[in-house]
């Protein structure tokens, strides 16, 4: 896998985007922490400065200038100011009247008042300077006092915070980068597997399918959807091939009959009656061919799934009752008994015209293949979420080993080739059931056949 592909990949890009977002947010956090620590330290510094000012001022008020100078010396002697403990402090006390001076500051900074900052040479190393924050006040008329502290400690803390952040961010960036690359490579491997499968199918290996990882994640979901689509397409392709070869084989037979008949007529027919008889037979033959054509077209039309758009909620009960009434006299004329046990008010989603044809085919099969005296039952009952419609008869039935074959186009039961029929009725039934996602099953009715269909109830 080329590195530039990984860097260009969508997953790496989003990893980079999130890393950048994290970086920006951590900078904001750094700013807030930085400001809070800085402010806290400054307040502490100012607090101790003000405390020292108060001590010196109190000394002056109670016992005069000498005491104040004494306090200043005491303070300067402590570790806090000597610079023994960093960062060190600075004091300047000056009485304008006496001109006396105490403290460790050489330059009084023009006797500025209030809180201010300036830089002075470092206490023990005069070649460098330090920043001093302090406050200048008059503790009495003409007595100026300045107390200040080295701000170096604040700078050190600042440095530490910056360093800590720099480390954390460096590590985070490395993880983000590696993680991004890792996940991108993983992702791209699986995408490549999909692409490879598509290429294979383009190259003619129609049975190839996308490998699944079994993790049930969204990529597996996509792979399953694509595989299902490929299955569907391959079924349609197979159907198409099947239809083409069916048409080639099974239409050839009636066409041969037709041709033979016409040829024979040309050679042998003498009278106008002879010709009329042949013409009548020839028209019958073509009508038979047209019926096969229509059935094949209807099957492939149903299998293409284009009728799905015409689906609507309909009453299966009423549909079956209509069909029952329609075939009642037909069965009677065959000396058969057509019965119904239809639960009223059962509604499903479907195509009324196709469903009518489907159940008509089933009932006509029962009537045509059943002997005189046969009983045919149309049943509809709801079980759970399934509308179970069945057509049951006590006719000859279908042998167990042929039950799954009868749904094929042009399949005729062994020994029934001489009876009328084109072997397309059940193929159409199966196609219509599939279109409705209905289950369809052939069972032994002991004796006879039971065709069970199950639709989803609305």
């Amino acid at each position, binding site marked *: 896998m080329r590195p530039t592909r990984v860097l260009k990949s969508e997953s790496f890009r989003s990893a980079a985007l999130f890393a950048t977002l994290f970086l920006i947010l951590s900078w904001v956090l750094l700013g807030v922490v930085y400001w809070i620590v800085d402010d806290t330290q400054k307040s502490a510094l100012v607090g101790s400065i003000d405390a020292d000012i108060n001590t010196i001022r109190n000394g002056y008020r109670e016992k005069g200038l000498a005491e104040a100078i004494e306090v200043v010396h005491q303070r300067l002697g402590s570790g806090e100011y000597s610079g023994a403990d960093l960062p060190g402090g600075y004091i300047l006390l000056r009485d304008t009247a006496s001109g006396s001076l105490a403290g460790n500051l050489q330059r009084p900074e023009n006797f500025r008042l209030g809180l201010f900052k300036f830089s002075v040479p470092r206490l023990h190393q005069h070649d460098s300077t330090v920043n001093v924050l302090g406050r200048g006040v008059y503790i009495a008329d003409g007595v100026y006092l300045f107390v200040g502290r080295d701000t170096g400690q604040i700078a050190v803390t600042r440095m530490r915070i910056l360093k800590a952040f720099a480390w954390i961010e460096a590590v985070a960036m490395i993880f983000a980068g590696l993680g991004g690359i890792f996940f991108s490579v993983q992702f791209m491997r699986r995408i490549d597997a999909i692409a490879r499968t598509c290429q294979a199918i383009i190259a003619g290996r129609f049975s190839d399918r996308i490998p699944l990882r079994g993790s049930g994640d969204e990529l597996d979901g996509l792979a399953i959807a694509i595989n299902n689509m490929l299955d569907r397409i391959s079924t349609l392709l197979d159907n198409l091939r099947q239809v083409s070869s069916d048409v080639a084989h099974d239409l050839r037979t009636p066409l041969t009959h037709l041709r033979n008949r016409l040829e024979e007529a040309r050679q042998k027919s003498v009278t106008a009656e002879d010709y009329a008889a042949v013409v009548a037979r020839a028209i019958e033959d073509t009508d038979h061919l047209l019926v096969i054509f229509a059935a094949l077209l*209807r099957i492939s039309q149903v299998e293409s799934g284009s009728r799905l758009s015409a689906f609507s909620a309909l009453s299966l009960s009423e549909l079956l009752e209509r069909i029952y009434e329609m*075939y009642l006299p*037909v069965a009677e004329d065959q000396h058969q008994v057509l019965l119904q046990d239809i639960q009223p008010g059962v509604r499903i989603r479907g195509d009324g015209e*196709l469903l009518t044809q489907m159940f008509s085919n089933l009932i*006509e099969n029962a009537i045509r293949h059943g002997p005189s005296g046969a009983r045919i039952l149309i049943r509809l009952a709801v079980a759970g979420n399934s509308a179970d419609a069945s057509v049951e008869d006590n006719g000859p039935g279908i042998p167990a080993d042929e039950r799954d074959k009868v749904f094929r186009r042009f399949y005729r039961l062994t020994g029934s080739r001489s009876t009328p029929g084109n072997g397309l009725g059940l193929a159409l039934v199966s196609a219509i059931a599939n279109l409705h996602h209905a289950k369809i099953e052939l069972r032994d009715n002991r004796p006879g056949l039971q065709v069970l269909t199950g639709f989803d109830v609305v």
Partner: protein
Amino acid sequence: MHILLVEDDVELAGSLLGQFREQGYQVEHCADGDSGLASACRGEYQVIVLDRMLPRLDGLRLVRELRSRGVATPVIYLTTMSGIDDRVQGLEAGGDDYLVKPFAFAELLARVRVLSRRPANANEAAIRLTLGSIELDLLKRTVVRAGKHIDLLPQEFRLLEYFARNPDRMLTKRMLLENVWGIHFDPQTSVVESHISRLRAKINQGFEGDVIQTVRGTGYKFLAPH
């Protein structure tokens, strides 16, 4: 009666022209959609027989154009497009009947005859149909023949109603299936024959003669009794 035939298949058009003229019809022929539309708008035709796939202007658009111009002449399509959707589209465009090629001429003739008397039959919404001594109450769904009440099953009543709306016309098996049962496929059993024989038995019982005449190989004719 005047018929307009719009059909680009020269052989089929020639055959249809000959057969219609033999039946005493005056037929005009157009071989493409544009001239078909022009003639349909100009002429006084009782029925237009229209191929669905035509050069220049296809049949569906021709019918839509015709209807939008307020021409209500009944249209029957002749087409090789046998899908359910094709038929629905054709009728939605404003056509009145749909016949899939190839067909028997008798089938086309029967449909043209039924269509041609449509405009005159403005009483589609009537609640009572009277044919000689037979009287149908379409609201109560009852039938009386010469004062005698006849009990019919719902599908038998619809069959009789369709006959009564088209008396003395040849009605083919396929027309009965489409109009009485709403079925557009060919049943492999004798659905029509069985229902006709039941209806015939009920309506003829106790009377002379047969009001439903069978025309062998073609269909049935309802003759109003006196």
